[in-house]
């Protein structure tokens, strides 16, 4: 645990009835860092971030944000954080500019609505009712509201969930702008691309525990040097022999492709070519790629992130 970190979480536990949502989560986030909690639905990401936001109390363990306890620090804590919740709802007949002005009025120092409208591309929608906004516009408004008090720490809980890829990339651009402002940002996500693109460090969470923590590069490097080979053949594999090729630790079918995870890529490729000749099959395409965070998750849990 790093002392003096902006966010410190130590041995967090939380139970909902008979379900253990958090089973000893620990991590720290430094000032100006973008930290990701990556894991499937139900892993404990939202529970963790809601405890950090002060929305829930932990059963045991300690949390600290800017040296403050979210449960006992009162308004002083609320002044230093901003949050975009997993689902933000506003009254249907509230206008966009009114929402920013209202939430800004809760803080002694806040950014002006016109500045936020411009920054988050909502100027044309300033007088639109909340109910008239698209999903992407609502999410941009949620981000703008999270920044209205110019907080030190920003919590973004699944900021792009349910949005189409184009809109998701627009949100990524916004978050990358926030990175340049050196804000401390904690993002929860189940999107690999989001974690790899935005986060300085990532904690992979599953079943209420942090199972891996590090920079995306460090995490990939610890994968046991497993490389993914994506193979497409003219005829489908019939006898499942691909998984037995030299160096292959795992083989999966995905649409028309086969994903081979190999620790000895050159030998696997030679074995593959021989196998295809014996089967009178042809290689249509072959792609070699470094492992992704999803591969790390698979290696650690035996499951895919989206299962």
């Amino acid at each position: 645990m790093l002392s003096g970190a902006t966010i410190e979480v130590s041995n967090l536990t939380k139970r909902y009835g008979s379900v253990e949502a958090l089973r000893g989560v620990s991590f720290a986030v430094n000032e100006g860092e973008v930290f990701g909690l990556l894991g499937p639905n139900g892993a404990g990401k939202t529970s963790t971030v809601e405890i950090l936001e002060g929305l829930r109390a932990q059963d045991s363990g300690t949390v600290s944000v800017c040296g403050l306890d979210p449960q006992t620090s009162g308004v002083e804590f609320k002044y230093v954080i901003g949050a975009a919740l997993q689902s933000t709802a506003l009254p249907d007949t509230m206008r966009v500019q009114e929402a920013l002005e209202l939430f800004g009025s809760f803080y002694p120092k806040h950014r002006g609505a016109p500045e936020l409208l411009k920054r988050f591309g909502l100027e044309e929608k300033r007088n639109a009712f909340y109910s008239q906004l698209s999903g992407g516009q609502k999410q941009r408004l949620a981000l703008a509201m999270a920044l209205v008090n110019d907080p030190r720490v920003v919590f973004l809980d699944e900021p792009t969930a349910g949005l189409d890829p184009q809109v998701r990339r627009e949100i990524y651009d916004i978050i990358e702008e926030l990175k340049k402002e050196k804000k401390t940002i904690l993002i929860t996500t189940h999107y690999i691309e989001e974690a790899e693109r935005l986060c300085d460090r990532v904690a992979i969470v599953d079943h209420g525990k942090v199972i891996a923590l590090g920079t995306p590069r460090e995490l990939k490097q610890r994968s046991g040097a497993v490389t993914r080979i994506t193979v497409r053949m003219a005829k489908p594999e019939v006898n499942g022999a691909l998984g037995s090729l030299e160096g292959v630790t795992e083989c999966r079918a995905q649409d028309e492709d086969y994903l081979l995870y190999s620790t000895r890529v050159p030998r696997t490729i030679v074995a593959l070519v021989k196998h295809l000749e014996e089967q009178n099959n042809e290689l249509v395409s072959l792609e070699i790629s470094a492992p992704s965070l999803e591969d790390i998750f698979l290696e650690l849990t035996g499951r895919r992130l989206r299962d």
Partner: protein
Amino acid sequence: MTKSRMRLAMRNRAFLFFSLVTPLAFLFGYGALARRYSPSAMPYLLAMVLALTIMGSFWGLSVQLVTFREQGILRRFRVTPVGSSAMLASSLISNYFLTLPTIVIEFYLSRSLFHMNGLGNLLSVFVLVTIGTVTFASLGLIVASVTNTMQETQIINQIIWFIFLFISGATIPFPKLPVLVQKFSVFLPATYLVSGLQRAMVDHTSVVDLGAYLASLVGCALIAFIIAAQLFRWEPESKAPRQAKLWAAAAVIPFILLGIWENFNGDLRRHAVKDMQSISEPYSLERIDH
């Protein structure tokens, strides 16, 4: 936040219907009766309309708060420095300023269309309107704090509203109620609101002489507000504790005490009979030949 709540209310058609159209419908109904049978009854009848307008705060605020909670709107506010007391206070204040225009319109129409004589004791009316609006709004907030779903809220609202409507004197004059019902009615906050407004409009009763009624309404409002703030829930899935409804019942303690006193003393009944008799023609559905 108060300004924001008022703006949202003005954009809500249901609010405009129940807070403006419905009370005016009662006013026109009573006004037509007064005009046809007994014009001097208008102050007495207007008092009933004013009471109905004020009591509408009870329904509106409970529904709004539960809606905001169920839709997850309240939880976003929870991450801000706004506390539960501030949320509730803004509800009360915005509701008060939204109710006042309807009250003014009702007075204006009573004078201009139904030729009401005089305006009663305006200071007493103003104080009763102010305290009454806050009291019934607070009662609405307490209902929202002890119910878990909109369905439950609507059921409790309808039961309480039905009692307020028909047993307090707001629609059927208090002296016309069966004696047994009167004995129960004196335990209701609505009864003291109706009676107080009628005494202010008909007898021009002063604020001082309405002291017991006002004190009970103020006491009820304070207790209701404190309990509503304590029981306030931000999260859609959080449930009211089992003892919550018992705590909520504590809000009517002032009226339990007042009701016990009234059943022995009969002061409210005497005034109610006097106010009804003070109008030139008895309140009756039979037409008086002029």
